[in-house]
């Protein structure tokens, strides 16, 4: 932030032009989180036990596999948006940029790992 001219003091302090999109996607992913996580919650309650064989047989079926893949994508997307707000609210020094880059790497990496694990199970590569 400049200290000299009037324009220098305000340049770069306006809207980022992406706030409404961030806000809307946070709500859309909230709804898809609600559907997919409640599917997981009900599934856990309906499964006879949480043993390896039971869970693998369940998650390898088409509907649970797709729902858990969608859950991973939705939840990681929503978490990325929420943690971005946390960083932007409380980190004001040079670490902010570093943390935001790390957040994107972690969210995309974590989501990719989760999706891959379910696909591997559903396509029978564990057997």
């Amino acid at each position, binding site marked *: 932030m400049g200290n000299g001219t009037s324009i220098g*003091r305000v340049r770069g302090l306006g809207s980022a032009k992406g706030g409404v999109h961030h806000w809307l996607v946070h709500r859309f992913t909230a709804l898809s989180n*609600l559907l997919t996580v409640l599917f997981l919650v009900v599934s856990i*309650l309906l499964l006879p036990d949480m*043993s390896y064989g039971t869970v693998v047989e369940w998650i390898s079926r088409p509907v649970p596999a797709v729902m858990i893949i969608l859950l991973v994508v939705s939840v990681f997307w929503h978490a990325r948006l929420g943690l971005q707000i946390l960083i932007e609210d409380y980190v004001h020094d040079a670490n902010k940029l570093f943390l935001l880059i790390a957040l994107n790497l972690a969210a995309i990496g974590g989501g990719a790992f989760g999706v891959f694990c379910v696909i591997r199970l559903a396509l029978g590569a564990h057997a």
Partner: protein
Amino acid sequence: MTLPQARGFVSAMANAGTKNRPLSPHLQIWKWGPHMFVSILHRITGDGMALVGLGVLLWWLGALAGGPASYATFAWAMTTPIGYLVLVGISWAFFSHMCSGLRHLVLDTGAGYELKVNKTWATICPIAGVLLTIAFWAILLLR
């Protein structure tokens, strides 16, 4: 506009954005109410799940994909006292965040800002989160 006060005002405007800007009242100014509690609880449960819950989710999926041996390690860790504490914590965070999140979706439509209505739902949300958590574990452990 030749008075000293006027010149001071102009001078203050020229320094806008640099120093002595008025600050909006922060948390310690207000009397605490349920709406403030449910607001910060929404952030704590959401970011808590993002930082801890997603780790456990990936460990679960990774252990399943890794095979029976890696799943046995995961199952052992999650059935220790600390493991149960983490799982109960995640489930409580989810149900609380779900209730306060649904409240936010209603507030986003512009409804529920009347003082009594707002206070009522702000009180109900965290209680519903705890009750749903108890119901979930009761069904899971007593079936």
